[in-house]
Each structure stands twice: as C-alpha cells, then as structure tokens.
C-alpha cells in the first residue's frame, strides 16, 4: 500500500521530466488541468520560488480529438461539421477558413449576397467571442459582475445567430460556394437593434471596468510580448495588435468583401495585457460598424451558386484557407488527391502559437500575474489540442 502511494507521488511522465531539471528549494505545482482560470483542460507545470515562477511548461492534449485524422477519413462536406468544434467560440471563422480552402481548390465563385451574409454572421460571432473573453478574463482577475453583463449581451447575439444557423455554439453554417440558409427579416431587424444596443453597452463597460484602478493594476505592464517575440512564435490576432503591429488579414490581404467596408484596425504599442484588453474592446466597436455597413448595402440575390456538383471532388493540388479569427490567423491547409476525401488537412490554430510563448513570457513573474497573462492571451483549449 505504501509502495503504491509512493508510485503515485512520482507523478506522470511530464511531471517526472519536469522535475529532472528542478533547482534546490523550489516548489513544483500543477496548475490545472481543471483550473478555473484556464477555461478548459489546460495543465501547466510550474516551478516556483516563493511566489515567483522560475519555469513553466504547458502540458497539452487533454481534449485532443485528432481532428486532422478525421479530415483524412471523412468526405469534404462531412468534415464541415468538425470545424465548429475546433474553436467553439468563433466557430464561423473556422467554417470560413475551411470553405475558403475548398473553394480555392474548386475555383468556386461565391455569390455576392453570400459574402455579405458571411461577413455579417462572422463579425457577430466575433462579438460573442470577445464578450465571453471579456467576462471570463475579468472573472479570473476577481471581478464577478462583468461576466453577468457579458453573458446577458452575448445571449442576444447568440439568439440571433440561432435564427439562421439553427445552433447556438458549434455552428455549421457556411458551405462550399455560399451559406446554407438566407438571412430572415427577423434576423436583420434583430441585428440592427443589437448593434444599436451594443453601442450603448460598450461605453458602460468602459466606465464600469476599463477605467477601474484595480483592473489597471492587474493588467498594466504585465506579460510583455515584443514584436520580435511575436514573430518567432507566430503570434497573431489581437495579441499581436497589442504589440503595436497593425496586422489583420481583413486589411492586409482582404479576403471576401472586406475591402468594401470602412473600419479601423485597433493597435496599441504597450505590448502588455492592458494593450491586448483594449484592442479587443475596440474591435467589438469595429465589428459593429462592419455589420451595420454590411446590412445597409446588403444586395439581393442567391446565397448559393446556381450549379453545384453533386459530389465534391476537388482537382489535385493544395490550398491554404486563411481568415482572421477572434484569436488570430486561422489557416487550413488542404491537400487534395482528386478523390472525395482530403489527402491531408492541417489546421493552423492561432491559440496554439499564442500559448507556445507562455514558457518564455512567464519567467520570473508572480504566479498571480500568470493568470492575468493566460487570460489576456484569450485561449481556447479545444483549438490548441484539436
């Protein structure tokens, strides 16, 4: 019995490997895999000296589902349903990246109205994603009220998306060549109201939370990510724009019809958690602006091309579908061998690259700040593990 207990104390493979490099008089603890501030099953092994982190190592794979293998055994349309499950918070961006890759292979023209529908729904989904991040991040930092506000507002947008997509979280709405269902008048009116409503809510959030001194102390000058570090780790999205780089695929390589809208790319030079926070708060405003412009200029017409092949069999070759997700550049690399099943699908998840710098950025900081940094990176664990 004692022997058994001793075995248990040895820890698993990762703990033993981590312990081998430990210094004297330090404490090794596991943060996660069921830690509330990781919002999923992420585990981080930490070596602490007092309250300071000497070394940190994220351990992944707790929600690994081998999405890339599934891509090789399912047909092209069957795999569409997987995309909403990779990142459940910005599912439509993953939908989009995949259909873009396959549309490139098939050389499909997407009808104009379908592009508008995609922009409206994807931006609405981005707002829901940022709202959840906002509430959850502040919950990590000890503020309980914001998540109630965030969830209440997010609920409205999710009700709207439910009207046209039929699901609340793991959407499977875009399809090769267009979208599966047209917008309804109920959705359009509801979205107009939602945009107006959010314009009154965002200033309130600013008064309530953003200017709060306690929050500022928790996020100001915490978790500095330099541009060089971002480049070496492949950090993209709001995390990169928090380091002063105005890189956004919607502007840099405008896909779909993003070049028709007038919007700004918020960027802050400070490189810290506060900068990343402010970028996301500003982005919600820009998304509202894009939705309003898109609804105003929404053209009439079909949402699917007139002629679609019965079986999707892209010609031999490869395609890389890229879109700007709520967490950064989503890339899907599809290699086709000319059959109805992809030969290889590689998913580039932005959170995967964004988390990989944690070991470097967390050296020598306080444990409480690690929670603040993890939250400011806006991680979605199923996307990292895939």
């Amino acid at each position: 019995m004692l022997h058994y207990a001793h075995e248990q104390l040895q820890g698993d493979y990762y703990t033993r490997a981590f312990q081998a490099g430990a210094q004297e008089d330090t404490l090794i603890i596991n943060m996660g895999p069921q830690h509330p501030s990781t919002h999923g099953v992420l585990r981080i092994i930490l070596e602490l000296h007092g309250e300071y982190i000497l070394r940190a190592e994220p351990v992944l794979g707790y929600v690994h589902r081998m999405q890339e293998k599934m891509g090789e055994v399912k047909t092209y349309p069957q795999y569409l349903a997987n995309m909403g499950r990779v990142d459940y918070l910005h599912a439509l961006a993953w939908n989009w990246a995949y259909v873009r890759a396959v549309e490139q292979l098939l050389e499909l023209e997407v009808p104009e109205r379908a592009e508008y529908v995609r922009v409206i729904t994807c931006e609405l989904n981005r707002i829901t994603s940022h709202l959840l991040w906002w509430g959850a991040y502040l919950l990590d930092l000890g503020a309980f009220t914001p998540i109630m506000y965030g969830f209440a507002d997010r609920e409205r947008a999710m009700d709207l998306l439910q009207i046209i997509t039929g699901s609340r979280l793991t959407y499977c709405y875009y399809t090769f060549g267009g979208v599966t269902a047209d917008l309804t008048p109920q959705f359009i009116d509801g979205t107009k109201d939602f945009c107006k409503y959010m314009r009154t809510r965002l200033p309130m959030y600013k008064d309530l939370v953003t200017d709060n001194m306690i929050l500022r102390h928790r996020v100001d000058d915490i978790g500095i990510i330099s541009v060089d570090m971002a480049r070496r780790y492949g950090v993209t999205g709001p995390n990169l724009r928090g380091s002063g780089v105005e890189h956004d695929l919607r502007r840099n390589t405008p896909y779909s019809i993003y070049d028709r809208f007038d919007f700004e790319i918020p960027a802050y030079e400070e490189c810290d958690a506060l900068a990343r926070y402010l970028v996301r708060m500003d982005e919600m405003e820009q998304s509202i602006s894009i939705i309003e412009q898109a609804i105003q200029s929404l053209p009439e017409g079909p949402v699917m091309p007139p002629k679609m092949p019965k079986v999707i069999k892209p010609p031999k070759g490869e395609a890389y579908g890229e879109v700007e997700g709520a967490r950064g550049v989503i890339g899907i690399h599809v290699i086709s061998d000319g059959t109805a099943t992809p030969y290889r699908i590689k998913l580039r998840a932005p959170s995967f690259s964004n988390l990989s710098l944690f070991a470097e950025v967390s050296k020598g900081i306080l444990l409480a700040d690690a929670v603040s940094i993890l939250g400011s990176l806006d991680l979605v664990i199923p996307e990292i593990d895939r």
Partner: protein
Amino acid sequence: MKQSWVDQLNAAGVPKCTEVRKGVACFCLESQNLLDSVRKILELEYYLQDVSASDFQEGYLLTYHFAHFEEPGQAVFRVLISHEHPQVPSISSFYQGAIWHEQECTDFYGIEFTGHPDLKPLLLVPEENLCPLRKDARSKKSFLDIFPDCKLVEAPPPPESEENAGGQESPEEKASKKKGSGKSKVQKEDDETAQDSGQA
C-alpha cells in the same frame, strides 16, 4: 508589387522559387539547406505560421508556412525526407514557435528533428508510439502527381532499394547527407552497401 516580395526572397539568397499560386511562393529545399534559408527568412522579418508533415510515396513532406506582418504574400518551404531516415534539422533555434509544431509532427509521423530541445510527445499519450497519420502503402499517393509544378531536389532512392535499405543508418550515409551534391547517386551506393552488409 506581387513580384517584388518574391524577388526580395530570391535576392536574399533563398534558393530560386516558383510562385505556385497568386501570393504564394514555394521553395523546394534540401534538408541541409533548410536552416540557412530559415535564417534568411527570419532576417527578412517573416513570421512562422505553421510546420506540418504529410506522408507520400516518395517520403515525408515537411511544409513550413511563413508570412509577413506588413507585406502580403506567403512563403512555403517544402522539404522531402525519406521514410527510412525521417530526420530533418529543427528550426526551433530561429523560430521558437516551431518547438511545438515539430513535436506535433513527431507525434503524428515519428519524424526526428535533430537539434530540437525536447522532442517529447505533445498531444498524444507519452507511453505509446502511435504515429496515427502515417499512411499504409495502399493509400499513399505520389508527391509529384499532386504537385506537378514542384521538382524533387532531393531524389529519393527507387522503391525497390527502399525496402532493402533496412532500419539502421550507417555513418557513411550521415556524412553523405551533409555533402549534398550528387544526392541520389550517393544514396543509391549506400543502399547497396547496406544490402551487402546485410548479406554478410
């Protein structure tokens, strides 16, 4: 505008590329030239998008995607390595973000990245060596068939001698890999010596 960034890459000494699609430049590299080209592309301030592997008849194809924060365009590095010696230098000394990507490739295909700081399993269980994305002989397709615009820079040995090559790597072969020139010829001779030693 589009031409300029490809020219820039060529001028910086990344070997001659082909622009396969609009905005995508593809570079087929030999594994010994990989680090040199990666260093150059880092100097040009490209960021690493991802590293992935795929399984073909000719060997494992490693694909490195790079893009730029300011400029448009995507640079793709392709390295083909043989099934018998799935070894490629790790680019993690230049791009630390590649550490996890390379570990993932090792999980899925069993590829060894030389010079990687800690090549332990990342996403799969550490106790087993599963390599789930390796394809069986029947479902493997030809790399040249799918990418006709790419030429093989590192010619793999013909399929008959591949089976005879066996698992162990001889020191001569390692040396020949570094030399680089006349690759396919050297490889073939090595295979013959491996065969001879096996018979002896």
